[in-house]
C-alpha cells in the first residue's frame, strides 16, 4: 500500500497538518514594476513568482482572430530544489508544466476580448517543496488580476493524494514534497471553482477507480479554499491601492 505512514494514528500528517488542510498560503500582488501584472505566492515552502505582460500585439505567426494567444513559461530557479538543477527551463518537465499552465489559464481568461493579441505569463519557481505547478497557477491567477485582464473566474489549482488511516482510505490535500516522494498517487486539479468546472486534471502513478472520486472531491475542495484566500488577497490589495492613489492625487 503506498505510503501507509503518511498519516499518524492520531490522524496528523508528517508536517502536522490534518488530511483536509492546505499549507499556509501567503501572497502579494503587484510586486514588480516592469510587468503589467505580477504576484508572489508562498504555499508552505513552495515559493513562486508570476509576471504577466500584455495584452499586446501578437506576433504574426501566432495571431488569431478568435481571441488572445496565451503564452506561458514555467521555469524553476537552479537553486529551487535541494539538488541543483542544471536547466532552469526548456527541459521536458518545464515544457510540460508550461503547457499545463497555458491550458489552465486560457480557460480562465476571457480570451474573446482580445483578438490578434497576446498575453505572456511567466512563472518562476524560487523554492520548490511540492505542488509547484499548483502554486504557479494560483500566482498567475493573481498576476492576471493585477494586470487587469478580465477573467471568467479565479483559476485555482490544488493537488491531492491518498493515504490510509486504520485501513480506511483518506485523501490528503495539498501534497508536499515529502508526501510526493513517498510514492503515492498525486492528483493535480486546476479548476474555476466559481463555475465548478475543471480546467485541467493530471494524475501521477496509479489509483484504483474506487478512490478516484474521493480524491478528486478533496482536490476540488482545496481549490475552493484557495479561491477564498486569493479573493481576500485581491480585495486587500485593492483597498491598499486606493488609499495610495488618493495620496497621490492630493
Amino acid at each position, binding site marked *: 500500500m503506498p505510503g501507509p505512514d503518511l498519516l499518524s494514528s492520531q490522524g496528523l500528517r508528517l508536517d502536522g497538518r490534518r488530511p483536509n488542510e492546505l499549507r499556509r498560503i501567503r501572497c502579494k500582488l503587484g510586486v514588480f514594476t516592469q510587468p503589467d501584472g505580477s504576484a508572489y505566492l508562498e504555499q508552505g515552502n513552495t515559493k513562486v513568482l508570476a509576471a504577466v505582460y500584455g495584452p499586446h500585439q501578437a506576433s504574426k505567426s501566432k495571431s488569431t482572430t478568435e481571441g488572445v494567444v496565451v503564452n506561458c513559461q514555467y521555469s524553476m530557479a537552479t537553486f529551487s530544489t535541494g539538488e541543483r538543477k542544471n536547466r532552469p527551463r526548456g527541459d521536458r518537465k518545464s515544457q510540460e508544466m508550461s503547457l499545463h499552465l497555458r491550458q489552465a489559464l486560457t480557460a480562465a481568461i476571457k480570451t474573446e476580448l482580445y483578438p490578434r493579441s497576446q498575453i505572456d505569463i511567466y512563472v518562476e519557481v524560487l*523554492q520548490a*517543496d511540492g505542488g509547484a505547478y499548483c502554486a504557479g497557477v494560483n500566482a498567475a491567477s493573481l498576476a492576471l488580476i493585477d494586470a487587469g485582464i478580465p477573467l471568467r473566474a479565479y483559476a485555482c489549482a490544488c493537488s491531492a493524494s491518498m493515504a490510509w488511516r486504520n485501513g480506511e482510505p483518506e485523501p490528503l490535500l495539498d501534497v508536499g514534497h515529502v508526501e510526493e516522494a513517498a510514492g503515492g498517487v498525486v492528483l493535480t486539479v486546476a479548476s474555476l471553482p466559481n463555475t465548478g468546472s475543471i480546467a485541467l486534471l493530471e494524475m501521477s502513478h496509479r489509483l484504483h477507480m474506487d478512490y478516484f472520486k474521493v480524491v478528486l472531491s478533496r482536490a476540488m475542495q482545496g481549490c475552493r479554499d484557495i479561491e477564498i484566500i486569493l479573493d481576500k488577497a485581491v480585495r486587500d490589495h485593492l483597498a491598499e491601492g486606493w488609499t495610495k492613489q488618493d495620496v497621490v492625487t492630493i
Partner: protein
Amino acid sequence: MAEIYKLIHPLKYFTDYISREVRPDGRKFDEQRNIKLNVNSLKTAEASAVVKCGNTTVVCGIQLELATPKAEEPDLGYLVTNLELPALCSPKYRPGPPSDHAQVTNYLVSDIITNSKCINLKDLCIVPDKLAWVLYCDIVCLDNDGSLVDACIIALMASLKTLCLPSVTYDNDTEDIKVNADIRTPLKVHGLPVATSFAVYKLPDRNILLTDPSAYEEEMCGGIGANFIVCSNEGLLCGTQKFGGSNLLSDSQEESLKISRDRTNVVKKVIETSIKNDNEFVS
C-alpha cells in the same frame, strides 16, 4: 498629461527634466536608489540573498557540490557564477536562449568577482588533488529596472558573506567522504567589491553623469551596455567598463570614483545590518 508628453516627445521630456537638474523620478544626478536587502530567505539554497535597488530585484542562491579539482590546479576549488535574465524581468526580453546582453552581463559579473580576489579559491579546496568545493552562485533577475550589475554584485556578496561551509572529512584509504553539517565554518571573504553604474547623458553643452540609473534612464542614455560601471574592492579598482554610448570626460571620471567610494560604504552598512538582522523575508 505628463504620461502622454513622455510618449510623444520622449527625448524632450527627458531633457526637460535633466536641464532642470532633476531626474524624472525626482532624484538628484548623484543620488542612488534605496537598497533593500534580505539574506537567507531561500531555504533550499545553502546561502541566499534578495536585493532590491529601487525596483531592480535580484535573487542570488548558492548551492554546494563536491568535486575533484582540475589536474593543472590541484589546490583550487571552483566558484561558478551564473546570471539568469528570464523573460519575466523585463518586457524587452523574449523567452528563449539567453540573449547576448545576458551573456555579456554574466561574464562581467564573473570577471568582477574573479578580479576582486574576494574569494581565495584555495579556501575551497579540501584535500588537494582529491576533493574541493564547487560553489554554484546562481543569480536570477526578477525585475530589471536598471543598474543590474550593481544589484547582482550586492546579492552575490551578501550570499557569500553568509555562506558557512560544512566540515568535510576525507579518508584517504577508503575515499570515504563524510559531511558534518553541524560543524560549519564561515567562508573567508576578502573585502567587499561594490559596483556602481552610471549613465552618461549627452546634453548639447555637457555630459551629465547619472548615478544608479533606472531602466528608463538607461534607455535614454544609449540603451544596453552603455553604462559606465566602476567596481572597486577596498579601494582597489577591479573593473571599469564603458561600452558605447556617450563619451566620458575625465573630470566626470574622478567624480564617479568619489561617488562609488561613498556608495561602497553604504552597501557595506546595508549588508552588515541585513546579516545582523537576518529577518524574515518579505518580497
